[in-house]
């Protein structure tokens, strides 16, 4: 099977980026390769992850530039590499018309809430989790979706729920920052499993786009066999993480 070229866009710690790389390294995520990390912040954790795994880094600050100019530059950079899928994992800047129209339905992002809850202008994960806790929600989660012109309303590829127990709210009363940190940690653990799965669905051609009359939605074509096979392979990642063979979410503790 032809290998799909992927570029990951990240500005922050790069823990989801690391999880994608580990999934590839362990042979869990197949028929694709990570060709580059795109970043706007030379000093971010994701760059260190890229160096560790020998992934080329495409870097240019975006602040102060016209978004269109920056995106045209990026499209040029990417076209030479054969990138067919863009994955936004902790990307902290706007995504504009140039990039979306060039990569429409080939650009996915992960967001630390259950869409359509807690989307919108909230950009950083901490802000999302803080809003969730302030609202007193008992179930949150994460969403992987295709980035569309209406940025946070793109077709949902995959979602996973995370229950918020009383313990986190007890912490929240004493120390809101600590509770936000703890919730972020728990949701990230699910993100690290969800994003590679969404990528594999895309790479395997298992995502179908449908018009509902109210917009475009994504439907999974994966059958039970696919799901079981994926779960079996991903358990390898989970045990490798626990054994410390890959760093997984331990990178975060």
């Amino acid at each position, binding site marked *: 099977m032809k290998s799909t070229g992927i570029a990951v866009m990240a500005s922050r710690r790069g823990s989801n980026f690391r999880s994608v790389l580990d999934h590839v390294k362990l042979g869990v995520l197949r028929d694709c390769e990570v060709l580059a990390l795109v970043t706007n912040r030379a000093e971010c954790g994701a760059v260190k992850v890229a160096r560790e795994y020998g992934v080329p880094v495409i870097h240019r600050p975006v602040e102060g530039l016209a978004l269109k100019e920056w995106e045209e530059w990026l499209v040029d950079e990417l076209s030479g590499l054969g990138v067919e899928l863009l994955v936004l994992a902790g990307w902290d800047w706007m995504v504009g018309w140039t990039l979306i129209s060039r990569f429409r339905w080939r650009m996915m992002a992960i967001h630390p809430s*259950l*869409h*359509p*809850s*807690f989307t919108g202008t909230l950009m950083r994960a901490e802000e999302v989790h803080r809003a969730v806790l*302030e*609202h*007193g*929600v*008992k*179930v949150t*989660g994460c*969403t992987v979706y295709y980035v569309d012109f209406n940025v946070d309303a793109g*077709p*949902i*590829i*995959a*979602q*996973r*729920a995370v*229950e918020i127990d*009383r313990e986190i*709210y*007890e912490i*929240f*009363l004493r120390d809101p920052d600590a509770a936000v940190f703890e919730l972020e940690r728990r949701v990230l653990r699910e993100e690290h499993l969800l994003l590679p799965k969404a990528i594999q669905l895309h790479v395997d051609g298992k995502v179908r786009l*449908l018009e*509902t*009359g*109210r*917009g475009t*939605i*994504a*439907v*999974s*074509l994966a059958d039970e066999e696919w799901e079981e096979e994926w779960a079996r392979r991903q358990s390898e990642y989970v045990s490798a993480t626990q054994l410390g063979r890959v760093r997984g979410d331990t990178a975060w503790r």
Partner: protein
Amino acid sequence: MKFAVLASGEGTVFESIALYAKRGVIRGADLVLLLTNKPASGAVGRAKALGVETAVVTTKRPDGTKKGKEEFEEEIIEVLRGYGVEFCFLAGWNKVLDLVVDEYPYRIMNTHPSLLPAFAGLYGLEVHRAVLERGCKVTGCTIHFVDKGVDTGPIVLQKAVEVSDDDTVESLAEKVKALERRLAPMAIQLYRDGRISLVERFGRLTARVDLSGGWLEEWKRRERELLGSQGEGE
């Protein structure tokens, strides 16, 4: 504690609450009344079958003219007072309440068939249609206190369920109802046992639920006696 259920629809969640109350899963709380605004609703039939007293308050006067919202709500309050109701649970109730909420501040809960704040303000099957049209992969239900907003009150309990690609509006409604039928009685018992506290934080009221000290285990044990093996799930 005397409580009432208010329902406008099929009444399946009401039926579950009534069953939990009748069989002693819910303890220390008496279901004294089903109040409906729809005399022909499924809820009325179910109440009769279960031996729960029913009161009907419609939005129309006997002469066919429409009641004002205040008049409608005052009538509801009168009925509830007459039964000595201290707590109300809205299970598929389709009218926005104001005076009743004033009468029972944070003593009314509602069940909403989505994971709030997603899909607030919609009712019944509309919610599931919106979930499918948005292409959500996870939905669920929310039990919350009723305040003056629509579906905005403090969240007491939530539970998630996966949306499958072959789900229809109806199949999704069934899945979510199955969750509501179990969460609603639990929320009522939590309230009765004083396990829910309201906390103001950042200018917003939220509900904290205390399941500790064996409460949850005891609840599950009693629920299992009623449901048998179906109750093994969680």
